[in-house]
């Protein structure tokens, strides 16, 4: 039939080689998860093999299930709102007719992505303070009692999710805006001639036009089911909210502080990867089965 496939093979070679060397090469290190790994002995040195001991060690720690639960709770909320908010904002931005305003808003909302949690942490302590923070002041205007966002165990996870969305939603809208931009303007034209109003156009043209990216982002975001955001939590939590805010990554970090426990860290990493892999594969299959869409 048509033209030769050879060019297709040639095209993938550089990328495949790079992935093999720099991603698959290091994956051999997964064996560390099954060792009592001591860096000084070297990666291929005479390390002690301890089977599943690293996994059992973590599971048997007194707070393991509390930490797992916290991680899931925070991560799932982040996945849900991390999808909804950027999609909604992208659609709203698309409705802005004044070009200069549209551009300014787009540019502005992506700025917090560039500030680290060390910086934002300091700012959050100020603006969320129950006594003098601006957020509680505004809540006070509508008669709500001050909330100790960073110090209250019921509010802390929500604060994490909220502040994470605040930091990242603007950056997240970019991909949806690109999807909206990719929609053929002739479709809107045709809809207008048919008398569809803006709302109907959004519902029947914009959203379906974004469907592909939404499904893709949803499936991929499941890979973060056990990532509740180390840097953020590490900079915001305190003994006061360990109960609701201690997550897998901070937990492992504190264990690692004591001794370079690479085996434990690798075991936890592997566990997270396997769970993510199962979930994403499942989602991939479901998307294919029910939405008839393969994300790749």
């Amino acid at each position, binding site marked *: 039939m048509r033209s030769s496939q050879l*060019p297709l093979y040639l095209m993938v070679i550089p990328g495949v080689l790079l992935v093999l060397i720099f*991603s698959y090469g*290091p994956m051999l290190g997964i064996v560390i998860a099954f060792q009592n790994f001591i860096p000084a002995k070297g990666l291929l040195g005479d390390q002690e093999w301890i089977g599943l001991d690293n996994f059992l060690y973590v599971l048997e720690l007194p707070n393991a299930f509390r930490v797992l639960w916290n991680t899931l709770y925070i991560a799932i909320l982040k996945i849900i709102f991390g999808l909804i908010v950027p999609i909604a904002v992208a659609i709203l*931005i698309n409705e802005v007719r004044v070009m200069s305003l549209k551009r300014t808003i787009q540019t*502005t909302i*992506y700025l917090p992505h560039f500030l680290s949690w060390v910086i934002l942490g300091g700012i959050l302590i100020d603006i969320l303070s129950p006594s003098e923070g601006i957020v509680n002041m505004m809540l006070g205007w509508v008669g709500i009692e001050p909330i100790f966002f960073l110090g209250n165990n019921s509010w802390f996870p929500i604060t994490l999710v909220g502040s994470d969305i605040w930091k990242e939603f603007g950056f997240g809208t970019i991909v949806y805006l690109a999807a909206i931009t990719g929609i053929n303007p002739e479709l809107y034209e045709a809809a*207008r001639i048919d008398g569809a109003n803006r709302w109907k156009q959004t519902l029947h043209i914009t959203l379906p036009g974004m469907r592909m990216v939404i499904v893709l982002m949803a499936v991929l975001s499941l890979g973060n089911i056990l990532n509740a955001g180390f840097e953020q939590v590490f900079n915001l939590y305190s003994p006061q909210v360990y109960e609701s805010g201690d997550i897998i990554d901070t937990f492992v970090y504190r264990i690692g502080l004591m001794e370079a426990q690479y085996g434990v860290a690798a075991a936890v990493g592997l566990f997270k990867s396997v769970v993510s892999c199962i979930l994403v594969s499942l989602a991939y299959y479901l998307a294919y089965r029910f939405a008839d869409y393969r994300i790749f």
Partner: protein
Amino acid sequence: METKGYKYFTWFNNVFLILLALACLFPLIHVLALSFSSSSAAAAGEVMLWPVEFTLSSYEYVAAKSEFWRSMFVSFQRILLGGTINFLVTILLAYPISREPKEFKPRTFLAWFLFMTMLFNGGLIPWYIVIKEAGLLDTIWALVLPNAVPVFNVILLINFFRQLPKELDEAAYVDGAGHWTILWKIYIPLSLPVLATVTLFSLVMHWNSWFDGLILMNKPDNYPLQSFLQTVIIQQDLSMITSGDLEGLSEISDRTLKSAQIFLGCLPIFLVYPFLQRYFVKGIVIGSVKG
């Protein structure tokens, strides 16, 4: 033909988005205000959105700091080189994999082959050893080659390529065009918004990465900007100050200085966005290309 209800909606929508934008602008303005304030006012937490006891001394200090500018130069090198490589590799992977299996048999295998790297990794030590054995330590390539394949970007681009109408390929085949021509003449021009997106993602990734620079560079002279900033802004561990650190104590804790460096460090990447933004603004009329 727009209804009254829609007018109200537009009005509310604009106000809402402006408020949202202000909430996002807030932290940056705070950092900027700190950078122009006196250190003692900053240390007392008196600075919110406007400088207190305005001074340019932080910027004078940073301007004289050669490491800052040298590391910024390394960062520019990195995003130039890394961005270009990312761009080429992404397109070259996405195009074949976006084909149907009957056209390119290993596509499904390759898609999973790439995707797995998003989920699994071997951790710090083997990653370091591979890069070391490849002889890349202490060179700009250590920051560029291991990050050469942005898998998320590839997957995104695959999806966009697959959405392009198949008739376009058919027409091109009939004209005797090969894959290289189709990619270059049809796919790329039609995918400018998403190409702008993945380019932005890869530039931002390269600009923001700091950890790899710290571990893979043997000399601080080779740190990219964010790695250098990391050495500046990390919080001093207050339980472990030794007597020897006394002299540096006030400098370490100087928030205004940190703020000035953070702000300057973000500036270049902020300027990239408006430039790429023009590709997001207008849709591309596929029909017109087809004709």
